C-alpha cells in the first residue's frame, strides 16, 4: 500500500517534533537516532528515508524556523537599512528561540565557515537562503549590485558571531543579543556605506 503525501508529511513532522523534544531534554550530542526513532514510533530505516542524519534533522528545524522568520519579516520592511536588517535577524532569532537549548553544537557544525569534509546540504541551503534575502534587503535600499565576497563574508561572520553569542546568552529574553544584533548591523551598514560617516557619499559596492 502506498502511503499518501499527507501521511508522509505527518510522519516527517512527528519525527521532527520528537527529535526537538529529545534534543531539548537531553542535548543534541546525547540524543541518538535510535532514541528519536523510538520516540516517533517509526523504524530506524524509515526515519533515514526522511532524514539521513541527526544533524539534518536539527538543521531542518533551523531552516524551517528561519524561513518562518523571513516570511513574517516580509510584511515589515520599509525602515532604514540597519533597521530592516535588524528586523530580519531578530525575526529569525525569535522563531529559533524554542530550539535554543540545543542549538550551539548544531550551528557550530552546520554553519561553520571553516572547510569541512561533510557539508550539511540543509545547512548550506539555509545559509544561501539567508544571504539571498539579505541581498534583497540591500537591493531595496539601493544597493543594486550584488555584494562582493568581502561584504558577504563580513555579514556572515557578524551573523555567526551573533548566533554564537545568542546560544549562550543568559540575559532575560536574550536582550543582550538584541543589543549585539543592533550594533552588528550598524557596523555592517557602516562598512558597506563607505567610511565617510554617512555624509552622502557614494556606496562602495
Amino acid at each position: 500500500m502506498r502511503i499518501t503525501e499527507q501521511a508522509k508529511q505527518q510522519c516527517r513532522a512527528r519525527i521532527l517534533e520528537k527529535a526537538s523534544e529529545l534534543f531539548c531534554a537531553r542535548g543534541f550530542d546525547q540524543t541518538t537516532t535510535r532514541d528519536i526513532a523510538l520516540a516517533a514510533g517509526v523504524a530506524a530505516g524509515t526515519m533515514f528515508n526522511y532524514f539521513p542524519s541527526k544533524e539534518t534533522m536539527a538543521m531542518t528545524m533551523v531552516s524551517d524556523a528561519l524561513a518562518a522568520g523571513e516570511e513574517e519579516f516580509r510584511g515589515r520592511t520599509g525602515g532604514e537599512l540597519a533597521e530592516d536588517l535588524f528586523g530580519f535577524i531578530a525575526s529569525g532569532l525569535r522563531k529559533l528561540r524554542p530550539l535554543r537549548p540545543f542549538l550551539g553544537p548544531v550551528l557550530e557544525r552546520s554553519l561553520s565557515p571553516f572547510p569541512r569534509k561533510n557539508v550539511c546540504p540543509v545547512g548550506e541551503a539555509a545559509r544561501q537562503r539567508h544571504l539571498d534575502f539579505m541581498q534583497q534587503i540591500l537591493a531595496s535600499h539601493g544597493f543594486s549590485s550584488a555584494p562582493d565576497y568581502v561584504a558577504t563574508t563580513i555579514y556572515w561572520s557578524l551573523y555567526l558571531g551573533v548566533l554564537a553569542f545568542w546560544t549562550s546568552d543568559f540575559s532575560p529574553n536574550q536582550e543582550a543579543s538584541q543589543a549585539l544584533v543592533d550594533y552588528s548591523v550598524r557596523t555592517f551598514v557602516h562598512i558597506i556605506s563607505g567610511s565617510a560617516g554617512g555624509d552622502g557619499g557614494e556606496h562602495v559596492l
Partner: protein
Amino acid sequence: MSCNALASDAASRERLRQLLPREEDAAARERLAELVETACSNRPPTSSLSRLWILGSLQAKVAGAYLAWWLKSRWADADEKERTRNETHLKAALELLGTMGYLRGAVMKVGQMLTLPEMVPEQYARLLSSLSFEAPPMHYAMVREVFYDEFGREPEEMFASFEKRAFAAASLGQVHRARLHSGEQVAVKIQYPGIARTIQSDLKNLRLLLQPMRVGDDWPNLLDKLAEIESVLLAETDYLKEAEVARAVRGHFPPEYGIVVPKVHDGYSSRRVLTTEHLEGVHIDEFLASDPSQEVRDHYTHLMTVATMRLLYRMHWLLADPNPGNYIFMPNGRLGLVDFGCTRVLTDEEWQLQCEAEAAAFQKDDKEMERIIVKASLYESAQEMGKKRVELVGRVIRWQLEPWLVEGLFDFGDSDFFHRGIDALREATKTGYLRGMPLHIWTTRFVLGARAVVYRLRGRCHFKEIYLQESVPPKASHADDAEKTDTRGSI
C-alpha cells in the same frame, strides 16, 4: 547613488557650546569648547557606532573612570602639566563616549554620580546631562522586539496608535507617544536592551580602574558609594518598581493641589516598558522663553517646594536624580511631576539624623550640629575629623538647611545664596573632604538639583510656611497645631 545623508548636528553642537561653563576664563573656555565640539563632530549618530564597538565595554570602563577623574581634578590646584594631562583624558573620554551608543547614558550617569556629590557647578552638570541625552534612539524594529518579549504583542496591536519615533530620551531608555483604545494619550517609556547587565559589569570594572585614584582612608567609603550607586541604578532598570513609586506619590497629590503625577497604566507596563498618562505642557526652557511674570515663577516655585517637601516628610523619599526634565509646566498653572525611576528612601536611622540636623539648626545648637556633622562624615570624633573639615562640611550642611530658618519669602533666585552653596561644595571637593554616608550622594544631588531649577526660575516661596504645613503627618495636616508632629525639630 547616495547614502541616506545623516543630518548635520550643528545645532546640537552649538547648544553644547552654550552650556559650557562661563566662569572659566575665555581661553580655557574656548579650549574646552573645541574639545567638546571635536568630540561631538566625530560622532555621526549612526555610523560612529561601528567604530571600535567590539571594545565597547572596555571603552565604557575607561571613559567612566577618566570622566570621573577629570571632573575631580578640575577642582584640584593643578599646574599646567597636569591641566594638559586632564584635558587629554577628557578628550579621550568624550571620544570614547561617542562610540558607546546606548551605553552612553549609563556611563554618564555613573560619572555624574561619582562626581556630583563632590559637586560640580550647575553649568557642568548641564553639560553632562546634555551629553547623556545624545544616545541614539532605538529604531522601531528594536522597540517591537522589546514589546514582543514583554507582552507577546507588538505596540501597534496594543495601542490604538503608537508613534514610531521617540519624542524624548529617558534614563536608560526613550519615550514614545501613543493612544489607548479608550482614546487617552499616553507616554510609553521603553528601556534599551541589556542596560542592566551593562551597569553591573561596568561598575565592577570601574572599581578596579579607580584603584589608582584611591586616596588613603576614604577608599572604603568610595567603594560603599559605588555599591550605593549600583543598587539605585539597578533599581532604576526595573520599571515595575518605578510604577509602584509613581502610584504611591500620586496618592499624596489630590487634583486640587495643582500638582499632577501621571497615572500608570498597569496593563501596558512591565519591567522594561512603562506606560503613563501623557501630560500636556512644556519644560523649563520653553517656559522661561515665554517670559513669565514673577508671580507665575513664584507660583511654580511654591508648587515645586510643596511637592518635594511632601515627598520628603511623608514618604521620606528623595528624587535621587533630579533634573529640569522632571518638571512639566502645564496649562492652568499646574505642575507635572514625571520620572520616578531614580529614587532613594531614607532608612529610619538616616531619617533620624535628618530630623536631628533640622532641630540643631533651629535651636542654633552648634555643639549638637558638630556632633551630627561628625557622624554624617563617618568619623568618631571632631578631633579625628579635624577642625577644617568640620568647618567646611558644616558650611555645606548649614547652607542646605538655610531656607528652613528664614521667615517669610525665600528667594531661590538669589545668586549670592546659590553660589555660596556651590562654593562651599567646591571647596570641600578641592580639599578632598569626600567621606560621608552614601546617602549623601543623593541628598546633595537632591538639594542641588532642585535648587538649580528654582534658581533658574528665579522663583520665591514661603519656604518655612510650606515646611510647617508639609512636615505635619497627613492625618493632622488640617490641624491648627503644627507642633503635633514628632518628627521635625522643635522650632
